[in-house]
């Protein structure tokens, strides 16, 4: 299995079909390889060889009987450690959940299993998915496989790194303000944030419920679309889960893009590094050559997005993280009184970024400040979502950068939380509007750092987004 590190879903399936290897051999080799490579990047927190091998045995039995092995049959996949996995430790990269073993699977994980995936392990991330660099993990930062002294992005840094490093064929991440797309762009892989509600949030450890999305990361557009196909759909266990039928992404993706209209949001080309801008413009030239029409559009409330987002997400986080009180979730710091036990458990076991967000969220929701902050932010969210509906009226999709700059050095932005928050400017808006968006590789800087091109489309129009991304990839993208 020399190609393990660059395997695509199609290659795995072909290898199994032509008996180059069995699913069990693949599962063992995938876990062995991931464990051996992990010290370089720290991308995995936990390995799940038993899960991978038991799934593999089922695949081999199906192959022997000549049965269909499923959409992801035999495909080694990593799962971000904020998604609950039955019987497999789920830490959220926090000391608070160091020994937490869920009693149930997240719906997205259950669907991966039903589709035949081999779950290799749990991917490192920022603590409770709060961060843009993966430096907020209680178990150490993840290193970017492309350049080991740089961050992989965050919060799904481990999920992006394993795909770039080749220690999984694809992975699941979660995106609340860019946590799939930004690490995908930093590591040079494909990352997809579907429409809000498209993938069930059941079993995703809640950070900001009105903004949380589950989505795939993979080495190409087709693989990302395949994983999304497997996990999308209505789930009665998530009350906000969408009813809309799920498209056949692999079929829709191959339709021509000739004549498609693309909007360029002018506000997303202000204040980004020149080299990043050059790559995105080069990407737009590729799309024009494919017959797309490109025109400038405006998302006028963009300058207010960071404030709006960090009020809503911290408010929801302060509420969601209230459950970690030293009673139900494994960890406790003993104290004489109940209140002291709560405070000491939370004070000692949450990391600094979680504390900062709990504090901000508690403050913006507190008596006398609610209208000025939380209610105001909810109104601004209406305006930001409205910007996208207006812009998408005249075009099929929007194209923009994912991040103003490529992967930065580990430690470079940790001293100043506001600077870190500002780096999310181009991605948080997609979550606020609940629209599907993705990052697709768009060349590298002179220093060899990947740049990601972002594509946004309208609610439930993932197919439109995949069509553009697939055509772009097939055309060779940007060198």
């Amino acid at each position, binding site marked *: 299995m020399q190609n393990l590190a660059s395997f695509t879903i199609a290659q795995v399936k072909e290898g199994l079909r032509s008996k180059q290897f069995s699913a069990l051999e693949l599962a063992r080799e995938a876990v062995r390889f991931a464990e051996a490579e992990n010290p370089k990047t720290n991308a995995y927190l936990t390995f799940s060889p038993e899960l991978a091998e038991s799934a593999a045995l089922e695949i081999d039995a199906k192959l022997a009987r000549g049965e269909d092995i499923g959409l992801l049959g035999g495909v080694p996949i990593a799962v971000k450690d904020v998604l609950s996995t039955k019987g497999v430790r789920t830490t959220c990269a926090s000391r608070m959940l160091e020994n937490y073993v869920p009693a149930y699977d997240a719906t997205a994980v259950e669907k991966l299993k039903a589709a035949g995936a081999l779950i290799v392990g749990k991917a490192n991330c920022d603590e409770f998915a709060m961060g843009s660099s993966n430096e907020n993990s209680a178990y150490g930062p993840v290193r970017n496989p492309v350049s080991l002294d740089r961050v992989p992005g965050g919060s799904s840094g481990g999920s992006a790194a394993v795909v770039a490093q080749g220690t999984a064929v694809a992975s699941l991440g979660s995106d609340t303000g860019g946590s799939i797309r930004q690490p995908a762009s930093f590591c040079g892989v494909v990352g997809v944030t579907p429409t809000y509600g498209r993938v069930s949030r059941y079993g995703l450890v809640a950070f900001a419920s009105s903004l949380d999305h589950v989505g795939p990361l993979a080495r190409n557009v087709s693989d990302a679309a395949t994983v999304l196909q497997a996990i999308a759909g209505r789930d009665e266990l998530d009350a906000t889960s969408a009813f809309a039928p799920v498209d056949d992404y692999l079929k829709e993706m191959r339709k021509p893009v000739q004549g498609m209209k693309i909007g360029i949001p002018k506000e997303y080309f202000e204040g980004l590094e020149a080299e990043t801008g050059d790559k995105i413009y080069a990407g737009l030239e590729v799309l024009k050559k494919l017959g797309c029409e490109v025109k400038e559009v405006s998302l006028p409330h963009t300058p207010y997005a960071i404030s709006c987002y960090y009020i809503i997400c911290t408010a929801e986080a302060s509420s969601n993280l209230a459950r970690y009180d030293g009673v139900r979730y494994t960890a406790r710091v003993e104290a004489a009184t109940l209140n002291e036990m709560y405070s000491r458990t939370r*004070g000692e076991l949450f990391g*600094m970024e979680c504390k900062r967000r709990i504090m901000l969220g508690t403050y913006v929701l507190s008596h006398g400040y609610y209208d000025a902050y939380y209610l105001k932010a909810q*109104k601004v969210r*209406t305006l930001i979502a409205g910007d996208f509906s207006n812009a998408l009226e005249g075009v099929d999709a929007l194209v923009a950068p994912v991040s103003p700059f490529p992967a930065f050095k580990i430690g470079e932005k940790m001293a100043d939380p506001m600077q870190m928050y500002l780096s999310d400017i181009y991605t948080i808006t997609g979550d606020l509007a609940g629209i599907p968006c993705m990052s697709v590789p768009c060349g590298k800087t002179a220093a060899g750092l990947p740049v990601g091109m972002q594509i946004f489309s309208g609610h439930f129009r993932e197919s439109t987004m995949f069509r553009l991304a697939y055509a772009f990839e097939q055309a060779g993208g940007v060198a």
Partner: protein
Amino acid sequence: MEFSKEDVRKVARLANLNLNEAEVDRMAHDMGEVLTHMEQLSTLDTSNVQPMAQVLFDAPATASLREDVIRKRTLLGTEEALRNAALSGAGHFKVPRVIER
């Protein structure tokens, strides 16, 4: 805006979050900086704008309601439900004594 150490301590009490002195200092600085940035929202007129609590739901508001019956898929037994307890006993979660006799 200024966010004092006293402000930090007050909010930390509301959040049941024990902070040490160094963290109180750091938090006062960081929250001051972030809240200053957030003040920009007050310059935006939103008097005729509806707040958005939920970005998208593609069905009637009652679509997720269901019959009040036991759902087997999400049912955990007592043992299973207590497995992750910090401390349990006699089928219950145990916490420090709350009521003195």
